[in-house]
């Protein structure tokens, strides 16, 4: 997309601004929809009905919530480190949002068609860790600090399984560019990397158990990286009030919230592009094309967002030691086996 804009408008500041702001056109409406989805799904899973009065079945409630948050007083604790406190939410959001640049939304659109796509996303989303730590530290509140500590420990340890499981797909495709990865999987549902990729049948069958495992682990690690239940130790409401965003109010809190939802989609987007064919249609050439591919990407992404919501309202929170156990003693060894096996199969 950047190249196209560059050709169109020349080397001007406008190109960068438009290029950077385009994913926002998706992220902001998505956050509104995701809030509603989360509330409605959680309510119906508990046999409730959630919002019913704002608009048809309460569909306008997120808009009302945003309006309310805009009007809230923006408080800063007296003993907080004011500068870091104000900086933190933006850094957290930036970490998630910057990842959207390398996400191929459609066969015609990718923010920046760089060769290091996935690697860039992994690197830039680590920025959020600094933001979280900053918010916890600057709040000068023990719950915030606890939350921040936990979140940093968690995200750093879950980066390893997520990076390794990305590696499995990258080994099969041979490219870090998510656009290339998506193109590689074109041709229908059987060519998706979860199902072994577009390989000869025997190789496909051999790859199948490992790709499925890696796909599953990538999704799990993704949930852990966005700090959602069952891995929501950083903001464990029952233990830590709200974790690192305890002291935040108004728009700053809203930005944390937005970052969470942006990250939710980013994680889903990575999982979808790497393992579920990205923007490719599950029916081969039927319903493909730039617009259909955008639809497929968003539909698949939304399915994984729904899955995250579903998991959140089903499973209880893990203990800290269980969390670390899962990451280091279960996911990582399994992935080593996967990488070894996939490498072996690909070489043979």
């Amino acid at each position, binding site marked *: 997309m950047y190249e196209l804009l560059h050709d169109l408008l020349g080397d001007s500041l406008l190109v960068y601004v438009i290029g950077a702001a385009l994913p926002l056109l998706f992220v902001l409406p998505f956050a509104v929809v995701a809030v509603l989805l989360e509330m409605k799904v959680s309510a*119906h*899973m508990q046999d409730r009905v959630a919002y019913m009065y704002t608009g048809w079945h309460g569909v306008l409630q997120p808009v009302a919530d945003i309006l309310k948050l805009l009007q809230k007083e923006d408080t800063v604790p007296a003993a907080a480190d004011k500068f870091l406190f104000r900086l933190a939410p933006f850094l957290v959001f930036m970490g998630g949002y910057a990842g959207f640049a390398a996400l191929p939304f459609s066969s015609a659109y990718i923010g920046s068609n760089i060769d290091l796509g996935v690697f860039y996303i992994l690197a830039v989303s680590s920025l959020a860790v600094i933001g979280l730590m900053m918010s916890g530290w600057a709040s000068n509140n023990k719950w915030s600090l606890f939350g921040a500590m936990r979140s940093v420990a968690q995200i750093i340890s879950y980066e390893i399984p997520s990076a390794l499981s990305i590696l499995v797909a990258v080994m099969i495709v041979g490219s870090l560019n998510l656009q290339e990865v998506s193109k590689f999987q074109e041709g229908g549902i059987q060519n998706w990397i979860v199902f072994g990729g577009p390989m000869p049948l025997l190789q496909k069958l051999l790859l199948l158990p490992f790709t499925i495992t890696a796909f599953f682990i990538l999704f799990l690690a993704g949930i852990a990286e966005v700090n959602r239940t069952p891995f929501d130790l950083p903001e464990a409401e029952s233990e830590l009030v709200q974790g690192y965003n305890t002291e935040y109010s108004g728009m700053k809190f809203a930005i944390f919230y937005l970052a969470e939802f942006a990250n939710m989609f980013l994680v889903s987007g990575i999982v979808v592009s790497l393992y579920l064919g990205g923007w490719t249609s599950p029916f081969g050439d039927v319903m493909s094309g730039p617009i259909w591919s955008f639809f497929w990407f968003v539909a698949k992404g939304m399915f994984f967002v729904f899955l995250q919501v*579903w998991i959140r309202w089903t499973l209880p929170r893990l203990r800290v030691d269980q969390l670390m156990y899962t990451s280091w003693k279960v996911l990582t060894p399994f992935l080593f086996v996967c990488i070894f096996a996939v490498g072996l199969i690909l070489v043979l």
Partner: protein
Amino acid sequence: MSEVRLYFNNIWMALSTAAIGMKTTIRHLFTPAVTIQYPDVKLKLPERARNRLYVNIDDCIGCDQCAMACPVDCISIETIKGTPDQDLGVTSTGQKKRLHVPVFDIDIAKCCYCGLCVYPCPTECIMMTDVYEFSEFDRHNLNYHYSRMSPGEITVAKEKLRKADEEAAAKKAAAAAAAAAKPATPPPAAGTPPKQEGGAQEQAKPNNPS
């Protein structure tokens, strides 16, 4: 169980139990919600539900039994005796009314909804209804006045009673004077009970809250 088996067993347990939970929640996602949109839709109350008290003041004979039965003293009744020349009518159960009821107040904020006042009522004029939405911004509005006598009617009733009492006293005095040769028997001073009800006059608005 060996270490290795335990390790894989744990993983299997984690996955299978999570799957059971996920199955439960997805099933509930598609079961109809049990929520009742309360102000729009209301649950039917049980037939004998006890909620706000209502007094059919037309049937009240002022016997004060409900006020005496009340464990929290939320019912206050004042009565004025009717004189023989007044016809106060009969209740729907056919009982003759002998007392005016200028004050019949129920402080519903104090009421504990025990229903004990309902049983002793000889004319079944006090009852518990199924109305339960009667919150007020001012708690004084929760003191319901059921009497419908106007201040004028109350004064008239009192005046009549006073006159009747005076006449009776005078008659008694005369009778006493006539009966006994000894003069100057002081008339019995029991003829002025309505005086204590002076303060209740302003309060007794004919205010029926339902």
